[in-house]
């Protein structure tokens, strides 16, 4: 049976502008956003990202609604302040990063789509950079948007201009903390995804490594191996976040091991750089 008919519509050469490498990078970035959010994909691909984002955003909407109804917001309340909010979103972003990072790298390699990129004005570095930028945008939005909602809600109830003037610092502090969470988790997510053949496997391994590292390092620290505190990957961003926001929401493993928050920040940067270089090398081989 014939599967299609070849229509002769003629051929029109493209005589308009060509955007070259910049255009290709932009296309790659936009595709990354769509892929992470499941846009222009089947409905089931949208379930996880949008459910996680809803869970992350709902508490802020709830507290804003509560404050509006009550007519006041106690800025000193710590039940669900900005720093505490990261306890929720910091855990959710682990799952989000696991799913998103594997979705960004694994299908291109498994489906052979890297061959298409190889015939376009892009380098492997462009590919990794733009995929990272897509993930950074979504993860940053995931982490920071609830804080913006919370901030604007409080400002609305407590008098906009005075609240914004007095508390503007919280916006850049939460933004900076969001960047730290991204830098701590995303490179590791990419590292696992770069070597996995299945998205679900990559996500599972990433989550397993991160969560097991916390339990294992706590046990080893209690046994006297304090240096193992450096390997508590899940706890570094929270510890640095408390440092940035001048808060103390948890007993962080690196802190218990006697390390300073600056050491945790250094670990995040070093792990991110090493992971990034490994991912780049791996993608070069796969291309």
């Amino acid at each position, binding site marked *: 049976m014939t599967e*299609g008919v070849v*229509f002769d519509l003629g051929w029109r050469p493209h005589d308009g502008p060509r955007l070259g490498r910049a255009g290709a990078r932009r296309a790659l970035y936009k595709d990354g956003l769509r892929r992470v959010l499941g846009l222009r994909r089947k409905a089931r691909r949208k379930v996880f990202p949008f459910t996680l984002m809803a869970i992350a955003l709902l508490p802020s909407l709830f507290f804003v609604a509560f404050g509006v109804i009550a007519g006041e917001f106690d800025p000193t309340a710590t039940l669900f302040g900005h720093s505490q909010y990261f306890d929720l979103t910091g855990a959710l972003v682990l799952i989000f990063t696991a799913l998103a990072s594997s979705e960004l790298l694994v299908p291109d390699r498994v*489906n*052979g*789509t890297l061959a298409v990129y190889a015939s*376009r*004005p892009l*380098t492997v570095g462009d590919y990794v950079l733009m995929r990272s930028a897509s993930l950074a945008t979504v993860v940053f939005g995931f982490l920071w948007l609830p804080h913006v909602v919370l901030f604007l809600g409080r400002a609305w109830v407590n008098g906009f201009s005075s609240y914004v003037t007095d508390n503007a610092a919280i916006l850049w502090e939460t933004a900076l903390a969001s960047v730290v969470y991204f830098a701590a988790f995303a490179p590791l997510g990419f590292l696992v995804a770069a070597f996995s053949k299945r998205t679900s496997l990559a996500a599972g391994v990433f989550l397993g490594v991160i969560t097991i590292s916390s339990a294992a390092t706590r046990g080893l620290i209690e046994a006297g191996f304090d240096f193992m505190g450096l390997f508590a990957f899940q706890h570094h961003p929270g510890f640095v976040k408390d440092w940035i926001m001048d808060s103390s929401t948890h007993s962080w493993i690196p802190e218990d091991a006697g390390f300073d928050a600056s050491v945790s920040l250094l670990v995040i940067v070093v792990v991110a750089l090493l992971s990034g270089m490994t991912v780049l090398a791996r993608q070069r081989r796969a291309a």
Partner: protein
Amino acid sequence: MDTTPIIATTDLRFAYGDIVAIDGVSLEIPPGRIGLVGANGAGKTTLLKILLGVLPAASGRVDVLGHSVATQQLEVRSRVGWMPESNCLPPDQTAADFLGYAAELGGLPVRAARQRASDVLGLVGLHEERFRYIGEFSTGMRQRTKLAQAIVHDPSLVLLDEPTAGLDPEGREEMLDLVTRLETFGINAVISSHVLTDIERTCDWVIMLDGGKVLRSSPLTDLSTTDEVELEVIGDIAVVAESARRMGATAELIGSVLHLKASNRDAFEIARDALAEADASVRRLGARRTTLEDVFMGEEAQQ
């Protein structure tokens, strides 16, 4: 007509570890439809990957469309399309979305990319299927989508690696028709295949590779030209063959077909005289057309 080479290589070498895949290849390929033939493992795909800059040449120089692949890789890639032999399509995107994306990756603005995606899908016979997910496509439809992504950004050169692989006879015919039409679109094509009849049908220049070396690079018409005569008769062909030999021709009988070749006289004249002497009638008489397979086997044997 512009005859500037679209591809020029000089003493190109590449090896996978100890295995030499490309061994001193020097080529100057004119515009048009170029066939790249060779057995499996001859180095066809490796050569295509080197032309794209996916694999770096160990030594030698490669210029594609006047740009050095080593130093101007992105300029080359912005004007080249590639249809790989293996799968390159995401199953979770519609054909229209993926083609639009592929065009944007080629540097086309968003609006132009969408328009071209629609046009090219129509051209390859997938207009009605453009909003279906690629994962639902048959092998033939996937091959056509692969060709579409290779040309959607209007490249000057397209590299097709085994474009008819896995296609049924009807799908193969359609694919070969599309490939043949590329030149009318102003797109030069290098078509890699081990199916020699596909190359004979679609190309005007052929490069034969064997063991990473170039056996031959020449117009296909040169390969087809022959001074041999092919003859079928009504009557005893063995007698005709014997007469021809007496007249100084080399006569080779293959089944019921007689191949005549003569250096001292026109082979057609010998055929006429031999038929008269043997009192036989002509069933079929004509110049023997050498197939690509004949040439390839001959060149390989010489090596």
